[in-house]
């Protein structure tokens, strides 16, 4: 995990009792200088220890990762485009118009018109709303449920753990898209239903990850110490282990946003997404694909690019956060 481009703080092995000491300020010619880590203190042993709160240290690691910082900006911009955009750029997104079917860009339609004669640019904003809502809602639902399931499984252990994990195995071996197609074709899909359905497949890997992490955290010294003090198992699980899962869970949740948007796009392509006048990027892209051989590029590339950029940003952000978590873990 060495990073050659940016000067990373020098690591000094902290005494075992310095629980929250994460990073050590760079030491230049014996005396510490002003920089991002200006809070430090000197121990009895003469070591210079930095006592910045953990979140600031984590933030500093994160800001070293330029692509991750850029992707945060991109995600903010796309969110603004989708939710604030329609307030600035007014279009009729309710009525379709045969007159303007697939109009090329120009004049009234800066980015052309959809096959139903709606303004493509405005449509992309509306589609972005549902897409982002699904992405974030699924990440939250899936993470919440997966964490509880994984912690419960790890907490009870033994036969309960075995049964819960076999159920997970069974669910994991179901090809999820087949189920989504099934559900979405049997009932008229609403945004909430789609969120529930995608969450229902997304929480599985989170649950497994959390259980595995919880099991490995159990062997840590601080858990052993708590056990030694006579702490109850429930207390250990939810007071000591759960908070330490936070980093891993946040990384996982960020990647879930990316995955959920991809699944939502595929569902949209299969024609099973939210009914009009609502739309999604997947649905818009699907319309563009129907007209693929007519050369209506404005129905194809903008929607596709928005999906790719958003997913890519979420994935890079997840990678950047993982970097922070892994480097934090190394210091432990």
């Amino acid at each position, binding site marked *: 995990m060495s990073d050659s481009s940016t000067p990373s703080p020098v690591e000094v092995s902290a005494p075992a009792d310095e629980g929250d000491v994460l990073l050590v300020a760079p030491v230049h010619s014996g005396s510490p200088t002003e920089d991002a880590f200006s809070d430090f203190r000197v121990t009895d042993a003469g070591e210079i220890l930095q006592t910045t709160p953990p979140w600031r240290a984590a933030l500093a690691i994160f800001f070293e990762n330029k692509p991750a910082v850029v992707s945060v900006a991109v995600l903010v911009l796309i969110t603004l485009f989708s939710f604030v955009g329609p307030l600035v750029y007014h279009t009729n997104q309710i009525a379709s118009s045969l007159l303007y079917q697939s109009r090329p860009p120009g004049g009234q339609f800066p980015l052309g018109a959809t096959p139903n004669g709606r303004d493509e640019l405005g449509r992309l904003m509306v589609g972005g709303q549902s897409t982002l809502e699904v992405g974030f809602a699924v990440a939250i639902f899936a993470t919440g449920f997966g964490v509880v399931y994984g912690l419960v499984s790890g907490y009870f252990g033994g036969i309960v753990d075995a049964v819960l994990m*076999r159920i997970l195995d069974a669910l994991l*071996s179901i090809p999820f898209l*087949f189920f989504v197609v099934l559900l979405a074709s049997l009932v008229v899909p609403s945004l909430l239903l789609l969120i529930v359905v995608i969450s229902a497949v997304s929480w599985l890997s989170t649950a497994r990850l959390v259980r595995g992490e919880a099991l490995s955290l159990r062997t840590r010294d601080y858990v052993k110490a708590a056990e030694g003090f006579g702490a109850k198992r429930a207390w250990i699980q939810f007071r000591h282990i759960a908070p330490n899962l936070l980093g891993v869970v946040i990384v996982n949740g960020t990647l879930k946003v990316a995955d959920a948007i991809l699944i939502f796009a595929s569902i949209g392509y*299969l024609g099973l997404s939210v009914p009009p006048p609502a739309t999604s990027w997947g649905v818009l*892209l699907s319309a563009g*694909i129907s007209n693929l051989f007519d050369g209506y590029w404005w129905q194809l590339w903008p929607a596709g690019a928005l*999906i790719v950029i958003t997913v890519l940003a979420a994935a890079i952000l997840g990678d950047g956060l993982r970097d922070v978590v892994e480097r934090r873990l190394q210091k432990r």
Partner: protein
Amino acid sequence: MTGYFIRRLLQSVIVTILVSIVVFLLLHSLPGGLVRAQLGPRATALAVHNLTVQEGLTKPLPVQYLIWAWHVVQGNLGYSYKMNQSVSSLLREYVPRTLLLVGSAMLLALAVAVPMGLWQGRRRNHVDDHVLTGTMMALYSMPSFFLGVILIVLLNIQVHAFPSSATTYGQVSAGQDVAELVLPVLTLCLGNITYFSRYMRSATIDNLLEDYVRTARAKGVSQRRVIYRHVLRNSIASTVTMVGLTFPYIISGSLVIEALFNYPGVGLLFWNAAQDRDYPILLGVILVVTVATILGNFFADLAYAVIDPRVRYA
């Protein structure tokens, strides 16, 4: 080894039964129901009643499940009223095509991803590793159908190299069939490479740090031999297991790809059945695909146990 084998087999059987119960209950608890789907919304109450009795839908659900399961065990997956054909004969026709598509895409993806991942693992954090990782990430961020569209635009519209849909499948000469396979296989393959190469890369990195590598180097084993004899072998073992685990995703991916390229495999069969509410097909396809997945996981695990003896005793 036998004990491990039996344990895993038992586990697979239990998982299969669990899945079949979930699928069965889901299909029988959804609105509309089998009878309405078959007769349409304008059927008379009498017709609905008659068919309900005839199909045994008045029996309690557990009994219905057992009857259905007994039929499945005997190889009877039901009868499609829309296609007017038994589900098993439909599957016999459609499954081999999907196997051909998915199988060739997976093999091709492995053939590219294994050397690539090994290379990236050895050249970790060099420029070429970053470039490849970035490319893979961009590919990962594309919905598979969008990737397919890009390939259609490049290889079908710009350069008239390959057909973009398999509408003539099985009717023209074998050469035509192969040409029609190119774009779907390529699309599915590119998607898989992103997953496989990522596993292979991290497996290589992990293995390079292992003690046995240091031991091998210390006793003077050549770099070539360390990489190909020790690291490659161990990395492939864990990658193959991961491939077994990604099988459900790959099958799901083929559903979209088959719809995009109009490729007549189980994915397209399933999708059309979903539009028609053809319950027997839906149930049959999900069951077969799930069993295939469980078998895939089972064999991946088994292969891993053969390669790595530590697993057997864990």
